[in-house]
């Protein structure tokens, strides 16, 4: 090597960072499982079994072991991974009621004023059928949004039917009929690499405005005008997670739940007070509240899923999966907990019936190419997108009710994700990306009738 080559070699060794995580044998095993599964049938979606589609959709996490037989277990299907169970005693972890003085409240005085890019009731662009679009996909908006950031106003509120999403540098309110961005406010996620959607409760849209070290700050915006409505500084127990994926959620009563280090803080969105703190035995990477609002699930480490009964503040289950990485993007349905694990091609969506990972089933392959496959629970169904298939599943059993292949354009994958059903209209929306055609935006979908049970 000459001098220049030696300098290049030295610089490559010096500048190239250490990886954030190592590859494990288990990662490779899961990869082999996926390849084996595809080689056998080429199926990327779970097969349905007849006769199990009418299980109830109660609010509790009723035992849903049938789901394990309905949705193909990615590992077990290829005979490579199997769940091994052992018994551990449950411990209770009562929530600590906090005094209002432990939270600081302020109304931001310096926040950027919202702007109104479009007040027109006519669409800026007419809806455009998406090439090879499945489920009647039509593009109603041509703006690039952050993956997995689409959210809808809650039923019964004045924000009925409104859509919200993060765009680079902004929180946008989107007209669900025209697709126009009608209001926007400056906003940059404090954790840009991780999916975290806005949370709508009452008339306010809440976002994370700070999330690092020992600082968690929530900011609320008026759901119609996006004018600042207040901030809540949440005390952190220790340090916040370095892999925060879905750390803000709302309960049925509208209270906000946010992961704050080794605790979950409960915030009253009306008074902007932290009203309760639930101590968790580890940094919380993700959380979800059951549809009835009576149960909380958290993912910690790499990873353990813990469920709490919120009425009595007791831990009701704890199970773990040796996944080599954190679990994230939790959602809670009547049948259990859904979430993601892994990154890239190994990112998978899983379903834990009854919030128990010993019965976990994998419901999607990884999406790869930097795309996310984050499950959503909207309109009474669970939606799983990505770059391979778009599927809806039964929230009680985990059974895939319908799915469709996501097309490619010139050999490059397209992406549908963050599926959201608008309250009121019942229209279904998804964020769409087509890198080959440089098309991005919000798409409307007409899913299979099977998705509605």
């Amino acid at each position, binding site marked *: 090597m000459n001098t*220049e*080559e030696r*300098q*290049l*070699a*030295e*610089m*490559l060794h*010096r*500048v*190239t*960072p*250490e*990886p*954030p995580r*190592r*590859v*494990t*044998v288990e*990662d*490779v*095993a899961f*990869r*082999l499982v996926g390849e*084996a599964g595809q080689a*056998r049938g080429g199926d990327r979606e779970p097969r349905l079994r007849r006769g199990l589609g009418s299980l109830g959709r109660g609010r509790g996490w009723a035992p849903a072991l049938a789901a394990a037989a309905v949705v193909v277990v990615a590992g077990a299907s290829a*005979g*490579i*991974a*199997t*769940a*091994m*169970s*052992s018994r551990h005693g449950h411990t209770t972890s009562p929530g600590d009621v906090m005094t209002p003085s432990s939270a600081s409240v302020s109304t931001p005085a310096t926040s950027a004023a919202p702007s109104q890019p479009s007040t027109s009731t006519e669409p800026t662009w007419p809806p455009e059928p998406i090439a090879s679009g499945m489920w009647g996909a039509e593009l109603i908006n041509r703006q*690039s949004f952050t*993956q*997995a950031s689409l959210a809808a106003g809650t039923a019964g509120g004045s924000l009925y039917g409104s859509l919200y999403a993060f765009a*680079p540098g902004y929180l946008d309110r989107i007209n669900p009929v025209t697709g126009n961005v009608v209001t926007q406010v400056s906003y940059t996620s404090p*954790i*840009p*690499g991780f*999916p975290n959607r806005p949370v709508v409760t009452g008339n306010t849209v809440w976002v994370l405005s700070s999330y690092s070290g020992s600082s968690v700050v929530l900011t609320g915006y008026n759901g119609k005008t996006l004018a600042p409505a207040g901030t809540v500084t949440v005390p952190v127990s220790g340090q916040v997670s370095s892999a925060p994926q879905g750390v803000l959620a709302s309960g049925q009563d509208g209270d906000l739940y946010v992961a704050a280090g080794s605790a979950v803080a409960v915030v009253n969105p009306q008074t902007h007070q932290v009203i309760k703190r639930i101590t968790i035995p580890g940094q919380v990477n993700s959380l979800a509240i059951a549809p009835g609002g009576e149960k909380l699930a958290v993912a910690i480490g790499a990873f353990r899923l813990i469920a709490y009964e919120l009425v009595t503040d007791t831990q009701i*289950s*704890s199970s*773990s*999966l*040796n996944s080599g990485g954190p679990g994230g993007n939790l959602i809670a349905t009547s049948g259990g907990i859904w979430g993601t694990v892994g*990154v890239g*091609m*190994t990112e998978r969506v899983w379903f834990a019936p009854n919030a*128990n990972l*010993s019965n976990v089933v994998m419901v999607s392959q990884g999406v*790869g*190419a*930097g795309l*996310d496959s984050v499950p959503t629970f909207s309109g009474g169904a669970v939606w799983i997108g990505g770059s391979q298939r778009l599927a809806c599943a039964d929230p009680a059993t985990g059974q895939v009710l319908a799915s469709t292949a996501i097309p490619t354009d010139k*050999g*490059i994958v397209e992406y549908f994700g963050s599926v959201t059903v608008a309250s009121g209209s019942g229209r279904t929306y998804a964020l769409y990306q087509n*890198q*080959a055609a440089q098309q991005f935006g919000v798409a409307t979908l007409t899913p299979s009738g099977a998705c509605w049970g």
Partner: protein
Amino acid sequence: MLASVEVLPVDGHPSEPDGFRDFVEARSSALLRSGWLLTGDWPSAEDLVQTALAAAWPRWATLTRQDAPELYVRKIMVNTFLRWRQRRWTGEIATGRLPEHAYADVFAQIDARQALIAALDRLPARQRAVVVLRYFADQTEAQTAAAMGCSVGAVKSHASKALARLRDAPGLAELMTGGVAS
């Protein structure tokens, strides 16, 4: 109830080969760093490394007998990378997920890494692969040629052209003369 994953034999594949876990634990960091240089982001680097290790799994006994498991894994990584580039996969990296976060005390490092990846992005895929194999993985010209399925002369040619392009890349000259510490 707790659950853990136990690795069992895969249909058509042998169970976890002897020495495979030791290799993965010892070398995955170096392989991932090579993958990062090839692809420019960690998720793709993980894809690349996992693809190569999955290919090596069923052939592990043969590879260890030949004392060449790492050469084989790197060969699969490079060929997979070149195949992705032919399919234009690098053109579809989404904007929603940033490769890493910049904290106040590491801005210089982040800038250096971004300059490096931007410079490598200017290279055709085969030139980039030669740079990674020769100058990061410290492979000989003959080993690089074997991994890429080309002649030693072609490796020399790719290396020469790559160096010429990197010379003109913004910010890289300073990095090569030791501008930023890790």
